């Protein structure tokens, strides 16, 4: 994980002009909070946790599909980021760093689950391999259909599609968060798009509107 944290410090340079970078530049409090934490003021970390907590939990939840696990992962990600804040470069956005940490922690949990459950569940459909989803966020029939379609995808396609469609990250941001190349992300998305279009044809297909 230490490699992950160190690599995170170079993330902004890899994403020039990204939404993350603009958001950070628009928020002078974020830079001040990071500087204060680095100078030994842990109370200033509250600002960063409060600012990013919902998004971080949402990313984790989309991958592990369990609210308790998602909150635990978010907590762990924030603690890890705090412990490595000394390596964080001045002026860099905090968002990509914490998103990357939580994504990797969540992917580790999913891998860990599948290792232990592989034999008994290998014959089941992908959606059945996961814990029961907590669908509190799903408020409509349309959203419910999209959610089920996303959950039916193979693991990598599912995670990439969720980050792109639900969390609204772009290809480069997803590549950084998942330690994949942009080409691989596009490939996963392309395959996911075909499958999703088939499954949701009655909702989106046909007309050219």
């Amino acid at each position, binding site marked *: 994980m230490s490699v992950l944290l160190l690599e995170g410090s170079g993330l902004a340079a890899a994403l020039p002009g990204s939404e993350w970078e603009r958001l950070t530049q628009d928020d002078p409090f974020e830079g001040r909070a990071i500087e204060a934490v680095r100078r030994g003021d842990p109370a200033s*970390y509250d600002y960063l946790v409060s600012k990013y*907590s919902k998004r971080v939990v949402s990313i984790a*939840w989309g991958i592990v599909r369990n609210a308790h696990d998602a909150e635990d992962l978010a*907590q762990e990600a924030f603690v890890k980021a705090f412990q490595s804040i000394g390596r964080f470069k001045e002026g860099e956005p905090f968002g990509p760093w914490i998103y990357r940490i939580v994504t990797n922690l969540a992917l580790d949990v999913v891998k860990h689950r599948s290792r232990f459950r592989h034999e008994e569940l290998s014959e089941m459909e992908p959606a059945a391999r996961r814990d029961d989803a907590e669908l509190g966020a799903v408020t409509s029939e349309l*959203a419910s259909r999209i959610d089920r379609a996303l959950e039916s995808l193979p693991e990598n396609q599912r995670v990439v599609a969720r980050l792109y*469609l*639900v969390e609204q990250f772009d290809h480069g941001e997803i590549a950084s968060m998942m330690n994949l190349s942009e080409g691989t992300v596009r490939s996963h998305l392309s395959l996911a798009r075909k499958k*999703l279009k088939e499954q949701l044809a009655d909702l*989106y297909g046909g007309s050219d509107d």
Partner: protein
Amino acid sequence: MTEEKFFERLRDDARSLRYEGDDFLAARLAARVRDRITRPPTVAQFLAAWARPLAASLAALVLSVTLSLTWTQRHQDSNETIASNPIDIAMAGELYGVGD
């Protein structure tokens, strides 16, 4: 509908699937993180941070001393074996003794 257009519309609709949690999520998480980062280290954490590396160093030291003593002991035994079993070597008509 083209695949690109389908995906654009799907992206608009899928935004609502983002997990929001309850109203206290941010406050609860901030409190949990604050508790973790300001809590003084427990005895177990202290031991994990200091005692384990110390124990590993001591173990390495004990191992190297043991190996040195064993090697010295064997070397000594081998010398004693030669000394207690003199060997006579005949060469060019002369008799030489080893270990006397």
